[in-house]
């Protein structure tokens, strides 16, 4: 076990800046609310409203601070010796559970080819770790694995095994591999079924692990690829354009106590084995049982044992796929919500570093902030409805509320401040991208600005929907409802109006009822709350239309104009295999049919 590593000075300064910035913004918002309410006496509703705005604004400011840190930071520089060769053995782990084997194994074939091209084949193996419970899917996995082996001459270095029980889910799957075969390798690159990585990136990760013996885990920032729908492409653009800057800021704050996002990372096998054996939590789900969001916990446990967990934002060539529609996104978010709220059980885990506990707290707050915003809106309406309150909207068609002694400016200032925290970081990121020519990969500065504007509008439309989904998820978890851990929905994901009704009808109904109540009882508040309730009323068209295909140039990203080698190879192999599969099925031959 290595010595414990304290945070360095730069990390402390970054954390200090973010904390002070978030605290100042939160306290400022709180003060503005209290000032606006002070004239006619503060009551419990005012105090509650002030408390809620303090937490929610501080949370927004925390995100903005990450972006600001990212904007002023430089990516770390690493020099790779030209004649470097690994002196260690690495296995690339691909845990799968009821996935499409053609797509998954095509990606593995592409990565294997890329690894070979990087001259790393003698030192890198692949292992597919199947947790599939569907026998039909398992039969297809075996068939396509045999095809992968033949295509890549991979026997003895590309492996496949299927567990008889999927105890512990993905964490248990990897743990089982380590217990059985971990001694054969120094490092493991952990991927998801939809992950893709350049061989050169894998090589550079191995080199950095070899160069820093205290490094227990190295995380990359995966770029989203393969987005076809409006929603998928908007996420892809967001991940490519904003995420690197936010992530760099995060890396500056995390320092040696970095994140693990469960995939597209490399771990030191011995460190992971000695630190990350996860027991089931006492009690029943959703708060007990298997640790769902195991990655955060594993990062905290590595740091507890003194290993460095680092996020290197300069590493490119790391990819994953994203949800193609809002419903798939919300379904994944429901799992993450339960996983993050479950971390409340671990806040007092023995020996954890303070920052690790704080990361758990951040994860919890990221989901609690949705119901907090909802409660703030409700309490604000209640404050206006309170009988002893003065009439803030004396005129029938009035935009701004009128407060005694003119407190309007405080409320307007608060609204502008909150919108600024949401918009300004993204605008600054665009400005920097236009200035340093990064925007050229996104179709040029003008096209990037168009994508920025549409993404901003789309975010504003979907935010109330996500507020409702997240609030429901939090209430479900708190009330003890286990959402399980269903597999990700991958693929095209185009939704029908019926599917949109099933997923968003309750949101549309709630929004319509709230808007109607406002029109009847508080017509002066309608203008202020229409940005929240109108998107809710329009939930179904937003869900359906955003799941439809969208062609470039809107939301163009660099990987579309010039796909990197591994993306091109993966697409070519997949297309070839799918064509072969279809032809063989037509002849009554080929892979078994699942289901």
């Amino acid at each position, binding site marked *: 076990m290595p010595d414990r590593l304290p945070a360095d000075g730069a990390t402390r300064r970054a954390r200090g800046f973010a904390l002070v910035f978030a605290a100042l913004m939160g306290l400022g918002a709180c003060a503005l609310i209290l000032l606006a309410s002070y004239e006619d006496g503060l009551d419990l509703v005012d105090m509650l409203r002030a408390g809620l705005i303090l937490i929610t604004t501080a949370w927004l400011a925390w995100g903005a601070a990450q972006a600001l840190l990212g904007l002023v930071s430089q990516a770390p520089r690493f020099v790779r010796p030209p004649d470097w060769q690994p002196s260690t053995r690495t*296995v690339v782990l691909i845990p799968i559970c009821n996935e499409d084997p053609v797509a998954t194994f095509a990606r593995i*074939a592409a990565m294997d*080819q890329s690894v*070979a*091209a990087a*001259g790393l*084949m*003698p030192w890198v193996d692949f*292992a597919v770790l199947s947790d599939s419970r569907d026998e039909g899917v398992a*039969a297809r996995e*075996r*068939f396509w*694995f*045999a*095809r992968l*082996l*033949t*295509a*890549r*001459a991979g*026997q*003895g*270095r590309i*492996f*496949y*095994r*299927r567990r008889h029980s999927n105890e512990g889910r993905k964490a248990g799957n990897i*743990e089982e591999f*380590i*217990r*059985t*075969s*971990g*001694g*054969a*390798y*120094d490092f493991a690159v952990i991927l998801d079924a939809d992950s893709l990585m350049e061989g050169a990136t894998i090589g550079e990760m191995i080199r950095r692990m070899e160069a820093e013996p205290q490094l227990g885990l190295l995380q990359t920032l995966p770029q989203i690829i393969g987005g076809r729908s409006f929603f998928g492409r908007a996420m892809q653009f967001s991940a490519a354009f904003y995420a690197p800057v936010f992530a760099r800021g995060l890396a500056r704050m995390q320092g040696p106590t970095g994140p693990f996002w469960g995939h597209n990372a490399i771990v030191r*096998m*011995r460190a992971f*084995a*000695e630190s*990350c*054996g*996860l*027991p089931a*939590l*006492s009690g029943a789900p959703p708060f007990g049982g298997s*640790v769902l969001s195991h990655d955060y*916990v594993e990062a905290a*446990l590595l740091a507890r044992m003194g290993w460095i967990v680092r996020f290197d934002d300069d590493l490119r060539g790391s990819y994953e796929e994203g949800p193609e529609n809002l419903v798939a996104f919300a379904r994944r978010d429901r799992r993450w919500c339960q996983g993050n709220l479950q971390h409340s*059980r671990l806040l007092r*885990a*023995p020996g954890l570093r303070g920052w690790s506990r704080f990361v758990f707290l951040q994860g919890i707050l990221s989901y609690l902030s949705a119901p907090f915003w909802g409660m703030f809106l409700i309490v604000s309406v209640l404050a206006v409805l309170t009988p002893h309150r003065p009439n803030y909207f004396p005129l029938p068609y009035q935009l701004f509320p009128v407060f005694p002694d003119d407190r309007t400016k405080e409320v307007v200032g608060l609204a502008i401040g909150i919108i600024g925290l949401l918009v300004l970081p993204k605008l600054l990121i665009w400005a920097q991208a236009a200035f340093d020519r990064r925007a050229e990969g996104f179709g040029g500065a003008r096209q990037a600005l168009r994508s920025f504007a549409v993404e901003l509008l789309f975010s504003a439309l979907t935010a109330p929907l996500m507020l409702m989904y997240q609030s429901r998820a939090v209430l479900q978890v708190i009330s003890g409802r286990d959402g399980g851990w269903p597999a990700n929905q991958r693929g095209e994901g185009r939704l029908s109006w019926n599917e949109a009704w099933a997923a968003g009808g309750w949101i549309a109904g709630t929004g319509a009822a709230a808007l109607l109540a406002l029109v009847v009882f508080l017509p002066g508040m309608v203008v202020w709350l229409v940005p929240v309730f109108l998107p809710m009323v329009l939930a179904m068209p937003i869900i359906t239309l955003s799941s439809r295909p969208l062609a470039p140039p809107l939301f163009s990203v660099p990987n579309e104009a010039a796909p990197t080698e591994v993306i091109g*190879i993966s697409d*070519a*192999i997949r297309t*070839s*295999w799918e064509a*072969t599969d279809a032809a*063989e099925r037509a002849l009554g031959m080929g892979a078994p049919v699942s289901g």
Partner: protein
Amino acid sequence: MKIEVTRKQSGIDCDIRMQHRNAQPATAPAGARAIMPNEVDFAPPLAPLAMPKQQIEAVEGRGRRWLPGSGRRMQGQP
């Protein structure tokens, strides 16, 4: 620490592997379609590594004791 293990190399040495460096995306030969092997054939090398379960829950009541006479618990008592 270097760990010595027995690996299933299946006769493919590194030189042969390197010949595939520039291999193009391949369509599997027709022979592959008949293969429906047992998954055990594909198992990774056997090289066990211990992975002890970690203590991740706070131990309730550790270091605490009832404060005599008060009927309430006090934190931090040995």
